[in-house]
């Protein structure tokens, strides 16, 4: 990267602090005029050492820590960790808890996609788009706040169930919000399809084909935009996803426009899943019967073993590999974040494009550097 620079080349750092990034990482670009000739990524500016911390905290303390892997989609991170531990313990949460978990997962997916689309609009200069999606996101965050008590980093899940039941009248408050969201998503889609400048900036930019995407190891909306129908909720269903009716949204073009379209469709599918869940919500206990798992689980020793559990994060496939040695703290937790391979695939994609396209491509990946660094 730092070899002999030719006369009209220069190295520019889209450095750790930049208005364009979803988190601090350094992107070294070698430019010839406005075209990118070489690119390199340096990570580690937000490394918190979560894997080492988890080895020294009990499992219950670990739930709060795992929240912070990506603070925007905290509930899905908790789902992965709690799912791993429940498999090691050999318990399964009752139906009502599973439905509540799915409701929260889908609400998290909606708000993450809204933020991703808004940020993408802002990166290409469409500031008003950001304001519109953030406004819709506020409604969804109020719903999550109503259930868990916080807008980010919730610490809501427990082993075998959830911490609190849904508040009274939640369904009556949620249905108008979902209907409003359906209308807004229709408005956004019309805005994206009819805006000529938006289409010129995104159609044909950052094209990934299915083979290249599989080879690079990406997952999530980026992969589904190339035509590969890979979704953990359908491949290996967890919780109650096998009982719900939804489809995997794919597009074939593989460019930035297709990724935005996939996210819009996924918001619609999430709204449909939420409506089904709210209709079918059964009554019952929150924790398994005749066990001591409940709201007061002080210390528990997990039987020895190892497990690898995956969930569908809004950004892709999130996995955790947990090894337990029979004590009250995990022996080793390996967190496989969804944005890590996508960020790794960014330099090959942007070579040959202009600086303006770097903003568009990196924005359409909808990243969270916090979970790439852990």
């Amino acid at each position, binding site marked *: 990267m730092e070899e002999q620079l030719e006369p009209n080349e220069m190295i520019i750092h889209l450095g750790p602090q930049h208005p*364009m990034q979803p988190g601090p990482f350094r992107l070294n670009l070698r430019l010839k005029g406005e075209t990118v000739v070489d690119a390199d990524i340096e990570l580690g500016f937000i490394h918190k050492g979560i894997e080492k911390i988890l080895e020294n905290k009990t499992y219950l303390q670990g739930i709060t820590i795992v929240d912070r892997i990506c603070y925007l989609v905290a509930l899905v991170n908790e789902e992965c960790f709690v799912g791993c531990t429940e498999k090691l313990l050999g318990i399964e949460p009752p139906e009502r808890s599973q439905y509540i978990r799915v409701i929260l997962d889908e609400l998290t997916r909606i708000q993450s996609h809204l933020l991703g689309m808004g940020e993408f609009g802002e990166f290409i200069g*469409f500031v008003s788009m950001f304001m519109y999606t953030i406004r819709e996101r506020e409604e969804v965050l109020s719903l999550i706040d109503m259930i868990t008590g916080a807008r980010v980093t919730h610490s809501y899940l427990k082993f075998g169930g959830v911490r609190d039941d849904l508040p009274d009248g939640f369904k009556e408050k949620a249905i108008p919000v979902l209907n409003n969201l359906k209308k807004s998503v229709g408005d956004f889609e019309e805005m994206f399809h009819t805006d000529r400048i938006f289409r010129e*900036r995104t159609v044909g930019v950052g094209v990934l084909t299915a083979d290249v995407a599989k080879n690079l190891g990406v997952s999530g909306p980026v992969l589904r935009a190339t035509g590969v129908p890979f979704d953990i909720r359908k491949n290996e269903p967890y919780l109650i996803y096998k009982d719900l009716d939804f489809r995997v949204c794919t597009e074939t073009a593989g460019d930035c426009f297709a990724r935005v379209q996939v996210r819009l469709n996924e918001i619609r599918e999430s709204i449909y899943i939420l409506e089904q869940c709210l209709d079918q919500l059964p009554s019952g206990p929150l924790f398994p019967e005749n066990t001591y798992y409940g709201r007061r689980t002080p210390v528990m020793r997990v039987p020895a073993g190892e497990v690898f559990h995956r969930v569908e994060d809004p950004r892709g496939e999130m996995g955790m590999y947990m090894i337990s040695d029979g004590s009250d703290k995990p022996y080793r937790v390996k967190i496989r974040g969804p944005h890590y391979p996508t960020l790794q695939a960014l330099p090959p994609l942007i070579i040959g494009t202009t600086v303006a396209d770097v903003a568009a491509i990196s924005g359409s990946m909808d990243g969270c550097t916090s979970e790439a660094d852990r």
Partner: protein
Amino acid sequence: MAIVIPESIIPLIPWIRGIIGLLLIGIIFIGAMGAVWLERKLSADIQTRMGPCRVGKYGLLQLVADAIKLFTKEDLKPLNADSLLFNNANIFMLGSVFLMLVALPVGAVFINGVEYPLAVTQMDISVLYIEAVSALSIFGIFMVAYGSNNKYSLLGAFRNFARMVGYEVPLGITVISVAAMTGSLNIVDISSAQGLHWNIFLQPIGCFVFFVSLMADMGRLPFDQNESEEELIAGWITEYCGMRFGLGFFAEYIHMILGSFLVALLFLGGWNLPGFIANNSVLGLIAPTGFLLIKATFVLLVIIGLRWAVPRFRIDQVVDLSWKKLLPLALLNLVWAVGLGLYLGA
């Protein structure tokens, strides 16, 4: 001029002109503050939020507070910046808009049925002069971008040149086509000759090309690649602090106000009013200027609103638009205008 000037004040005329010039600079700065306030409130409306609402009623004093803040900031300069270019770029940026102000009429008064346009000077080639002088600001922008010793500003400077070179040509051609149809380069004549048939109806393509080229000339979204905030931090003005930044910022808004006046004068009929209003003694003093201000404000609102409604072009799409799409349209409009002028003249 039918007004008789007493002998005694003839030696004082240069001083009077100087005082009027300073007053005009003050007024135009206040106008720029108003334009910034208008932009902030309109953008807030489009984005369903409130703009400035706490400092003064409806946030009108927000700009005064911002100006005080800018005056009290530390003036930083990068270590290896080129002092000559860095310190003196503001002269070009502000100088170009003030030179434009010299020849642009901001209204007219009708006394006894005779029209006296309110302009600092009356030139025979005023429209050509205004357009030539508005291109001086590119020097200021390039001086600060190149002299900052900053790679982001440098990228902004290169994009700027590509944009300006491309859009000066359609701008000039549309202006010439309007002048050719009217038969004079004096902006007062162009404005007076419109009457009820505004130039926007006679040359719609010309008006559209002029408006788009003007937006590109001023560097407003969707053409603000040189200061694209997301890729290049703040583009060409990254290293400017305090009031240096403030002066560049105001220069852009003054350019916007004068540009909207230009559109109103060249294409929207200027200050022309039906004869019975013009011959009235009281209305003849205030109505033409008021009418021109209303038209200019309308154009200003369109320019401001367009910024927040669309994303930004990429620089190669900008250059493509100017050379491959606007230039042929402008040439077509020139042919049409010359033909129309001959037909109307005959």
